[in-house]
Structures are given as structure tokens and as C-alpha cells.
């Protein structure tokens, strides 16, 4: 037990103080860091939500890649969506960094958990599930906006209304959400019409269309 506790001790010390291997931490003025705690915490939760969405989309990609399902077009669509969700998480992280955040509590920012759902009965169901998921994400972004727009718990020197973040979330994130939702809803409608009388063929053709193959 001695050695691990020594390592832990050193690790704790090295985080706060200089050792022979690193330079002393310095302090620069912090008045410019004005995000309120409530706003910052909502953005942190949103980052976790984007990560969870990226993993859920991975599960969808995995499902449609299976030999028994064989829908490479759908699989591609969902793998790409997964990458996008990861990029959304990265964009929000970058934003917090710009505002002077993420100097501590990094480890608890992201938890990687297994996705909730693993199978879908059809491409149609998956598209509708994705649409539902995006609707929830949109709602969550709106909650972040509300929390950052009017944070009554904001301390002195903090933004009770974080204009810039609210603008960023509204202009960039909500815009992308609404475009993405429209795209998914359009795909779901087209597929549903194709499935009406020829479900097996309809999904097959739609899948190839997603791959960019005209048949």
C-alpha cells in the first residue's frame, strides 16, 4: 500500500505545486472570466449529451452494418452523424476554453457509456428514432440558452445574461439542429412513401440512394 499512496501523493502534489519536472503555476487576472456557474454547468451537461448522441449514432451505424441487415447507406449516414455529434462536443469545449473555462474538473466532463438502444426493426424506425433524438438535443440546447440568458444565481462580475454564448448557440447550434431535423424528416417521409407497398424493395433502393448509387 505504501507505493501506490506515495504515487497518489506525488500526483496530487504535482497538480498544485512545481516539481523538478514542471514550472510553477502562475496567476493572471481572472476578472475577464465572466461565465456564471449555472450557465457553465449547462454547457458542460450539453457536452455530455453530444457525446452520448455520438455513441448512440455509432450503435445505429453498427446495427445497419450487420450482415443480416446489410444497409450500408444507412450505416454510413449514422456513422457520419456520429462524427458530427463528436464535433459538436468539440465545438462547445472550444467555446468554454475561449471563455477561460476548463482549467479544472476536466475528468468529470465526459463519461463514455454504452448506448441505450442497440437494434431497430427497420431503416424507417431508425430515421424516426434519430429524429426523436435530435428533437431532444434541440430542446436541451434551448434549455442551455434559457439558463445562460437569465441566470439569477450569477455572482458579482458574472454574466447574468451571456449574450455571446446565447447568440452562438442560437445562430450556430440551433440552426444546425433545425436543418438536420428537416433533413431527417424529409428522408423519413420519402422512405415511408417508398415502403408503402414495396417495403423490402423500398428500403433496399433508398439505402443505395444514400450511398449515392442510382439503380
Amino acid at each position, binding site marked *: 500500500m505504501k507505493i501506490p499512496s506515495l504515487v497518489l501523493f506525488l*500526483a496530487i502534489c*504535482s*497538480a498544485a505545486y512545481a*516539481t*523538478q*519536472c*514542471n*514550472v510553477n*503555476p*502562475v496567476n*493572471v487576472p481572472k476578472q475577464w472570466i465572466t461565465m456564471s456557474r449555472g450557465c457553465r454547468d449547462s454547457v458542460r451537461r450539453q457536452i455530455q449529451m453530444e*457525446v452520448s448522441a455520438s*455513441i448512440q449514432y*455509432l*450503435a445505429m*451505424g*453498427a*446495427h445497419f*452494418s*450487420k*450482415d*443480416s441487415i446489410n444497409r450500408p447507406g444507412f*450505416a454510413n449516414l449514422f*456513422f457520419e452523424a*456520429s*462524427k458530427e455529434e*463528436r464535433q459538436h*462536443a*468539440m465545438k462547445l*469545449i*472550444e467555446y468554454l*476554453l475561449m471563455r*477561460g*473555462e*476548463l*482549467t*479544472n474538473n*476536466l*475528468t468529470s*466532463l*465526459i463519461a*463514455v457509456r*454504452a*448506448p441505450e438502444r*442497440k437494434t431497430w426493426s427497420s431503416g424507417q424506425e431508425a430515421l424516426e428514432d434519430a429524429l426523436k433524438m435530435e428533437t431532444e438535443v434541440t430542446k436541451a440546447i434551448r434549455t442551455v440558452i434559457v439558463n445562460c440568458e437569465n441566470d439569477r444565481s450569477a455572482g458579482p462580475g458574472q454574466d447574468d445574461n451571456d449574450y455571446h454564448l446565447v447568440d452562438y448557440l442560437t445562430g450556430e447550434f440551433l440552426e444546425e439542429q433545425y436543418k438536420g431535423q428537416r433533413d431527417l424528416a424529409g428522408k423519413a417521409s420519402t422512405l415511408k412513401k417508398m415502403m408503402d407497398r414495396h417495403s423490402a424493395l423500398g428500403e433496399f433502393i433508398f439505402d443505395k440512394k444514400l450511398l449515392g448509387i442510382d439503380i
Partner: protein
Amino acid sequence: MTSGPKYSDTRCGKEIDDSRASSVCKGCTFDGLPAIFSFNIIILLSPYYASNCIMKVIALAVSCLLALSAVSAETCFNDVSMDCGQASNSLGLPSCNAIYGHFSRQGNVANEMQAYANLHMRRSYEYLLSAAYYNNYQTNRLGFSKLFQKLSDETWDKTIELIKHITKRGGSMDFARRSVQETVTRNSTIELQELESLAHALDTQKEIAERAFYIHQEATRNNHKTHDAEIAQYLEEEFIEDHADTIRNLAGHTSDLKQFIVQNDGNDLSIALYLFDEYLQKTV
């Protein structure tokens, strides 16, 4: 045998309404070898049959021959022959899948591949947090941040590649799977100093590389129970080669930093870390 019941299966071809064809087929299935010969003669003598029908009856006849000659019942072809011959609304075809060799059947190569994908996913998000940490205003080491971002991107891409490969081999992805090699979960601290963070990354890359060795060993080991040449060569080509480079680079970085720390009584350290970060910014 002469009444020729209407043969119908929409999945296997067009409807056959021919007394001889179906009776021959039945003969083949139930009465044994002699009927096959008579059936072959019928085909030779009767170009009159619709090609679709002939194809199907040939398939049935061949499958009958196969069933007689070989004991192995677990083939896709047999499944098709048996199930299509039955006038039911469902096709099971359990052997019509992408699984061959021992993958997903025996041993733990398939499980370990799932766990390997999960390992990449978790490490990728840890690297992403390290990249974030080195990009905050206090640490402000953009080169270190870039290094971790690259590691995160690479392990993320490999996560997707592994999932695709697992499904290529007829498996499915289990996001809860852990490797039998994983005894204790490492608690990863993100907020580390420069040399510590490189040391941590070096250890992580070795973990990933050694896991590939382990799966490779399972896929090539001598008892043939889990031998899988395809997985072995996939790991070699897509993972093992790159691992050596990444590990060597990180080890080289730690050697450089070590020199800066010990020489000149440590007086070079703050400038050395600054310059080394600049170097990383230009070279990563």
C-alpha cells in the same frame, strides 16, 4: 407422384405448375438417388421448360446430391434448398451469414474485437479531454493540445473502423464488452503536467498496442481453436504497424524532456517546455 401439386414459393422463383418437375423434385428429396438421374434426363430432353423452373429444379437436385454426399448440414446452400422447397411464408436461412472460420463461434477473438473497439472509444474521449486541458488559458500549450487532439482523432477513427470490421466478419457490436485482459479500470486523470501527460499517453498507447498483440496471439495460436488469419493480418496492417511509430515518437518526446529537466540544474525548464511546445505545434 404423378398428380403434380402446384408448387408455389414467391421468394425462390416463379410459380411452378408442372407435374413432372415437381414430382421429380419430390422424388429427389424423398425417394433418393434414382429419381435424380431420371430428372436429369428430363432436363436434357425437354428444352420446353421455363428457364426459371429449370434453374430451381437443378438447384434442388444438386442440393439433394450434396445432402447425400456430404454430412455437413450447416451451409447456406442447404438452407436455401431446404427452406425454398417448403411452401411456407418464412425463410430462416440461418447459415446464410458472413461468419466463417471460428469468428463468433469459438474462443474470444470476436469478443476481444468488440472490447478493442470500446477501448479505442474510451481512450479517444480521454485524449480529447487532454487536448482540451492543454488548450485552456493557464496551461496554454497548443502543441501538446494538438498532439492529444491527433491521438483522439486517430483512436476515434479506429473505433469506427473496428465496428465496421466486426460486422464485416458477421459479428455485431457490443458496447458493454470488456476484454478479459482488463482487470482493473485505470482511473485516468486528465489534469497532468507536461511530462506526466506524455508518460500517460505513452502508457495508453502501449496498452492499445499490447492489446492488439493479445488478440493477434488468440487469432494465430497453435491450437487452431481460434485461428483467424484474416483478423491477424487486419491487426498487423491497420494497427500494429502504426503503434510502433506512435510509441516511438512519444518515448522520444519523454527522452527530450528528461534531458531538458536534468541539465543545467533545471534552469532551462520553463524555456525548454515553451520551445518544445512550439516544436510540437509545428511537427504534430
